[in-house]
C-alpha cells in the first residue's frame, strides 16, 4: 500500500524565493492586523466598561458578532459583500479589515480583563500616598495592566498568523496561497504543504519563545 510514493522536496525548494515573499506578505498582514486590532481593542474595551448603556451595547454587539462567526465568512463579506455594494477593496485590504476587526473583538476582552485586574485597592493606595490622577495612570494602572495583557496579546498575535492563512482563499498572496500556486506548477502539492507546515510551526515557536523572553525582561516581578 504505502511506500511507492517518492518524495521530492527539491522540486519545492526551487521555489524558495516565492515562499519567502509569501512569508513577507503574511508578516506584513499580521503586523498591520495586530496594530489595527489593538486600536479596535482599546476602543472596544473602553466601551465594554462604560456605564453608558448605548456605548456598552454597541461594543458588546461588536465583540459577540465577530467572535461568534467564522473569519472566512467575515472575509467574504468584506471582499465579495462590499463588492456587491460597489465598494471595491483589494483582497489585501479586505483581508486586513476582516482580520483586524476579528482580532479587535478578542483584544477587547483581553484589554478589558487587564483594566479590571487593576483593583480598586491599588487606585486608592496610589491616591492615598498623594499621587495625582495622571501619575496613578502612568505609574500604577498602565504598567500593571500591560503586565496582565502581555501574555494573552502574544498568543493573539500567534493566532493572527495562523488565521492569516485564510486570506489565501480571497487570493492574498501569503504563504498558503503561494503554496497552492507552487503545488499546481510543480505537481508536488503534498511536499509543498509539508514545507509550509514547518514554516508556520517554526514562526510560531520562534515568536512564542521571543514573547516569553520579552515578558521576562520587561516585567520583572514588581512586588
Amino acid at each position, binding site marked *: 500500500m*504505502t511506500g511507492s510514493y517518492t518524495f521530492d522536496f527539491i522540486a519545492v525548494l526551487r521555489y524558495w524565493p516565492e515562499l519567502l515573499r509569501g512569508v513577507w506578505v503574511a508578516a506584513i498582514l499580521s503586523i498591520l492586523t495586530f496594530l489595527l486590532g489593538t486600536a479596535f481593542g482599546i476602543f472596544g474595551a473602553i466601551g465594554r466598561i462604560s456605564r453608558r448603556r448605548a456605548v456598552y451595547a454597541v461594543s458588546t454587539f461588536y465583540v*459577540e458578532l465577530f467572535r*461568534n462567526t467564522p473569519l472566512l465568512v467575515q472575509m467574504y463579506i468584506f471582499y*465579495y459583500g462590499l463588492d*456587491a455594494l460597489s465598494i471595491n477593496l483589494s483582497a489585501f485590504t479586505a483581508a486586513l479589515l476582516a482580520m483586524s476587526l476579528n482580532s479587535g473583538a478578542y483584544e477587547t476582552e483581553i484589554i478589558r480583563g487587564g483594566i479590571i485586574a487593576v483593583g480598586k485597592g491599588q487606585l486608592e493606595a496610589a491616591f492615598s500616598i498623594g499621587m495625582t490622577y495622571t501619575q496613578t495612570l502612568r505609574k500604577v494602572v498602565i504598567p500593571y495592566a500591560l503586565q496582565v495583557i502581555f501574555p494573552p496579546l502574544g498568543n493573539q498575535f500567534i493566532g493572527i498568523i495562523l*488565521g492569516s492563512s485564510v486570506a489565501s482563499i480571497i487570493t492574498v498572496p501569503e504563504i*498558503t496561497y503561494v503554496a497552492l500556486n507552487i503545488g499546481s506548477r510543480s505537481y508536488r502539492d503534498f511536499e509543498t*504543504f509539508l514545507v509550509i507546515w514547518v514554516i508556520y510551526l517554526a514562526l*510560531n515557536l520562534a515568536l512564542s519563545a521571543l514573547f516569553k523572553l520579552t515578558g521576562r525582561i520587561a516585567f520583572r516581578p514588581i512586588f
Partner: protein
Amino acid sequence: MENQPVLIQYAVFFLKAAGITLGISILSLLVGSIVGFGFSLLRISKQRVFSALTFAYAEIFRGTPILVQLFLVYFGLPIVFHINVSAFTTVAVSMILYTAGYMTEIFRAAIQAVDRGQWDAAYTIGMTYTQALFKIIVPQAMRIAVPPTLGQFISILKDSSLASIIGFMELTKAGMAVRAATSSTLLAFTIVTCLYFAICYSLSVASWRVELRLKKA
C-alpha cells in the same frame, strides 16, 4: 407569492447545511475528545517518551493553521495511502486530528488543576495510581474541562467553514452556492452569518452559565 416555494427550498437548503456544519463539528469534538483524553493521560505520565510525543503532537497541531492541515490531508491521503477519499473523510480526518491537539491540552490542564491533596488523599486510603486517577481525579477534571471544551466546540464550528474550500457542502459552501445561483450576495451572506451566530452565541451563553455554576460550587 409564486416565489414562495423557491424561498422555502432555499430555507430548507440553508437549514440542512447548518445541520451538516453542526454534525461534522460534533463528530470532530467527540472523536477528538476521545483521542485527546487518551493523549492527555500519556502527556501526564512519567514515561518520558509518551509525554514528549503527546506534547509534540499538541504543539504541532495547535501551532499550525487548520487550513494547512486540511490541505495536507487533502493532498496527502491519496498519495500516501493510494485511496480516493471523499470530501467528508478529508474534512473529518483533518478536523479530528486538529481537535485532538487542543483537547489533549484542555484535559491535561484540567487534570493538573485538580488539587494535589486529592491525589494524596486517594493514596492514603490505599488506592493505586490508576484507581486514584480514574475514580478521584478524572471525575473532577471533567467538570473543570467543560467550559474550555464548549469554547473549543465554538472554535470547531467556525473552523468547519474552511471545509467549504475543498467542496464540502456545509453552511459556508451553501451560502456561496446560493450566492452564485441567485446573485443576491448580501442576502446569502446575511443568512449564513445569522445562522453561525445563532449556533455559536447560544453555545457561548451556555458556556458562561456552566462557568458561573462551577464557580459557585
